């Protein structure tokens, strides 16, 4: 529940200021930027995502730390499942998909 997933903003839409495509370890999904309306992220910036909404801007270093924390907590797979699930119909979600691996701890 408390999962916060780090992702990088890779695409913004001029006609939809509250939508961005984010990249989480190679998986790209649309997220809602409405909670960052006062301080919208730019392309290339990193955010923490919770239930499909970007909730705070973070540094790249903190994003990598957060990925490591999720991996260490054993939550990386759940995080990837969550990101893969955004915006998809249930039928589109593969039952036993191979989730991209989170980076190894350095």
């Amino acid at each position: 529940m408390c999962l916060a997933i780090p992702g990088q903003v890779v695409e913004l839409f001029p006609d939809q200021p509250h939508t961005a495509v984010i990249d989480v370890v190679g998986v790209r999904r649309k997220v809602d930027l409405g909670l960052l309306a006062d301080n919208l992220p730019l392309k290339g910036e990193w955010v923490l995502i919770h239930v499909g909404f970007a909730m705070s801007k973070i540094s790249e270093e903190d994003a990598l730390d957060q990925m490591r924390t999720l991996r260490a907590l054993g939550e990386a797979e759940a995080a990837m499942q969550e990101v893969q699930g955004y915006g998809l119909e249930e039928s589109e979600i593969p039952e036993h998909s191979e989730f991209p691996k989170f980076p190894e701890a350095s």
Partner: protein
Amino acid sequence: MKFVDEFREPEVITKTSAEIRRLADPNRHYRIMEVCGGHTHAIYRFGLKDLLPSNIELIHGPGCPVCVLPMGRIDDGLAIAQNPDVIFTAFGDMMRVPGTLGSPLEHKARGMDVRIVYSPADALKLAEKNPDKHVMFFAIGFETTAPSTALTLMRAKAQGVHNFSVFCNHVTIIPAIRAILDSPDMRIDAFIGPGHVSTVIGCRPYEWIAKSENKPVAVSGFEPLDILQSIVMVLRQLKADKATIENQYKRVVPWEGNRAALRAMAEVFELRPYFEWRGLGFISQSALRLREGYGEWDAERRFDIPGVRVTDPKAAQCGEVLKGVLKPHQCKLFGNECTPEHPIGALMVSSEGSCAAYFNYEHRKTAMVTSIASAA
């Protein structure tokens, strides 16, 4: 100490652990509550207890939204979904939580249209794609999650999506902390404040804990070093007989919180006069409901809800565990009748529940050691 090698900056961890031992008065017993279920999970997962002296006791707080939800609310949500035109949607965490007649997943097996969504926005999308159905989102969560539900409702209203509603179970953390401090069987010396809730509410709402209750608070991140540093912060304060709010998680938590998120919550929600929490009972002004202006999207107004109160299974001692009066393994059902595979109480369902965390890390570790010892 087996997890220490996996930690980032192991030398700093060792130093911080030594600092904790130096600060802790051996003649004193410390009870420090980590409010957030994410911290509880991290503490067990990383075996942080092994890095603390035995007179520092970590008490697991009420910050697991699945765990504090009384069974009656699950029954109420499922009662709405009995209607064949209704699609019941919820986060995956909710799916295995037992109601009186089984969990949402078991209801799905019996033919109810129950679907997992990963975002409230996806529940809204589902409603748009199924105009002949009504999509109800079973909303749970603290202030971390409530703003996302609020924005989704604002979008539903703006887009005129009328076959969508929210069954709102959002709760707020501050009244729960107050209830714990008011409880006569609880003695807490200091708090580890929740990380992600605080990205929304900021640090200011905790100030009364220091000012009126004279208890230190450190808002903390989720890495092992974050939690240990937060323990150092509150021990330093206790040693100096001070009580303030410190923000250990500055890299993510702004002191003032997230104003856009707070605005969305204020637009959509108002405080309920009272709400029932599993283990803590009724707490006044501790939960959110939809404002009049969003009545059309409020499942509680649109549907008849039985509103029955259900007491927990008698033998289960979830309430005592939730308040920190009992440790998970001291519950009579722990590990035999109640396991993560077959949970009886909600604390065993979510990975953030203290029973599941204890079972997955402590209990399995002890069981392994015992079996190795008996084989030797």
